[in-house]
């Protein structure tokens, strides 16, 4: 130790440098490894509606401690499980306050969230579930993550079989052309890359927008009219009640055969039809039933 009187400025600088290095080092180094959680003590937060449904479907509903504001099925979790943010936009403080051990998300706008969670010792997993074939895979993965492997496997197999059966049935029949409308102003429809297109296919129809490779796009009204679809499907995000009235008022649409003969399908709950999740088979059957009923309405 130096016997001379310390220079205050230099001492302050040294402290600052050492402090900075310490802080930086604290940030570096191996991540805090999350301690293995005993099964049953998991606290799961799901940030996507379809993942929430899967968690409940594999029997891990009691482990659910947080959900997104869009997660509304099964109905009993709405009252019981607190909200940790919006779909794709989690509220970080609320999320951390729930003390989760595992966070499941489908797709996150805020890419900094995973880093923050990992540093707090919370497991974070992105489970992509966007197409029909993703669903069984996602079920299995969620089952593994929640410790419900057996239930997940059973559900996944049932769904795989169900999808295969319906595909075969759909291929055997003539497919009506379905124009699916997502939004009315401007008119928005779904393309070949979308889940809805797959659902329509599985239910025995053919999506009009499949010529376009995008997930959804602003359609040209003339193109829809020229294609003269067999059935018009309102995807219910804008309120089913006056869908038909709005359709009729649109220039040219009242003259379409499908509109004149009222081959219009609306009212299927969006959370059933638009969500790639464990209820996919019920959704397909409902859609199939409604499409068949619409075809029946064709004038003799």
């Amino acid at each position, binding site marked *: 130790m130096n016997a001379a009187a310390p220079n205050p400025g230099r001492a302050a600088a040294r402290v600052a440098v050492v402090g900075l290095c310490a802080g930086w080092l604290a940030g570096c180094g191996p991540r805090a490894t999350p301690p293995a959680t005993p099964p049953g003590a998991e606290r799961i937060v799901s940030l996507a509606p379809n993942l929430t449904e899967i968690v409940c479907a594999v029997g891990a509903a009691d482990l659910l401690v947080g959900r997104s504001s869009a997660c509304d099925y099964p109905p009993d979790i709405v009252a019981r499980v607190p909200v940790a943010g919006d779909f794709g936009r989690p509220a970080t403080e609320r999320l951390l306050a729930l003390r989760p051990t595992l966070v499941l998300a489908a797709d996150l706008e805020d890419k900094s969230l995973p880093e923050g969670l990992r540093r707090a010792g919370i497991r974070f997993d992105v489970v992509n579930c966007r197409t029909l074939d993703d669903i069984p895979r996602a079920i299995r993965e969620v089952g593994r993550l929640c410790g419900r492997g057996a239930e997940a496997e059973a559900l996944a197999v049932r769904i795989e079989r169900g999808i295969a059966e319906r595909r075969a049935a759909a291929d055997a029949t003539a497919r009506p052309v379905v124009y699916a409308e*997502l*939004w*009315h*102003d*401007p*008119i*928005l429809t779904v393309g070949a890359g979308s889940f809805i297109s797959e659902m329509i296919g599985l239910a025995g129809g053919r999506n009009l*927008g499949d*010529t*376009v490779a995008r997930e959804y*796009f*602003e*359609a*040209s*009204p*003339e*193109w829809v*009219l*020229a294609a*003269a679809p067999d059935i018009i499907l309102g995807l219910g*995000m*804008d*309120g089913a*009640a*006056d869908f038909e*009235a*709005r359709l009729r*008022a*649109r*220039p*040219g*649409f009242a*003259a*379409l055969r499908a509109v004149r003969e009222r081959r219009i399908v609306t009212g299927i709950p969006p959370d059933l039809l638009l969500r790639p999740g464990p209820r996919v088979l019920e959704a397909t059957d409902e859609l199939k039933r409604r499409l068949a009923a619409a075809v029946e309405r064709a004038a003799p």
Partner: protein
Amino acid sequence: MNRRIRGWFFAVLALAGLALCLAIGPGGFGWPDWGSPVGIARRERVAAGFVVGAGLATAGVLMQALLRNPLADPYVLGVSSGAALGAAAAIVLGAAGFAALPGSAFAGGALTLLLVYTVAAPRGRAPSLYAILLSGVIVSSVFGALLMMLISLAPAAGLRGITWWMLGSLQVPSAGLLRAAAVLVAAGWAAAFAFAPEWNALTLGADTAHNVGVRARAAVAGGLALATLTASAAVALAGLIGFVGLVVPHGARALVGADHRRLLPAAALGGGLLLTACDTLARSVHPSAEIPVGIVTALLGGPFFLYLLRRRKGWSA
């Protein structure tokens, strides 16, 4: 070429252009069967383009005359922000009925003018042009902020709807709305045309207008009201389409001169033609998808305006 002859020549050209637009669609070139769904859709679409374009151009002519400023456009006094706010409120509140959106957009635009004029008027006297412009800028900013707030609260699908609406779209919800807008635009234009001498005089200033026998205060207020009427009707029908209201008056002036008796018909025709042509491009360039017409008007309007600026014949500014 004499201006009168140019005017008539342009009228013929415009009608030919409109006829051409009627023959173009995403499926290709050719007249559709006018009773078929495609035929009905196309003629209503072209009609909508004409009505909205004429309405915006008329409003632009009036604003430039009243504010004595060639850079004024129909939106300069906040009509756009007011109408956008009205439309956004309708979307966010989930107002039912397909007349809800255009109706609230129209109300928003009209009420904005009232607000701007009242804010600018000192204790009931007629406001100066400077005060009106300043008031318009302030009201626009405040409404813009409110609009951003509404957008942040909007549901996801509504959000996309508002964004597209702000870019402009000629997909009219119903023929009834198109007719209503057409009536408003036609009435507004006819009234503007009847008072063409007043606008001529007002471009020389309120003093000069007074001296040649114009009731300047009433004429300015009336002119602003007419401009807001036609602009709000256009915006309510088709959202915020830019450039047409700014550029077409200049093009028309270059063609037939600044006398409003010739300028108003030329601008209405020119605006209708320009917007219909841009929309024809927007709706036909891809076989099944559309691009927002506001993008086309900006891409075409911008360079055209630059060209007009470079000519700059006869401007004192």
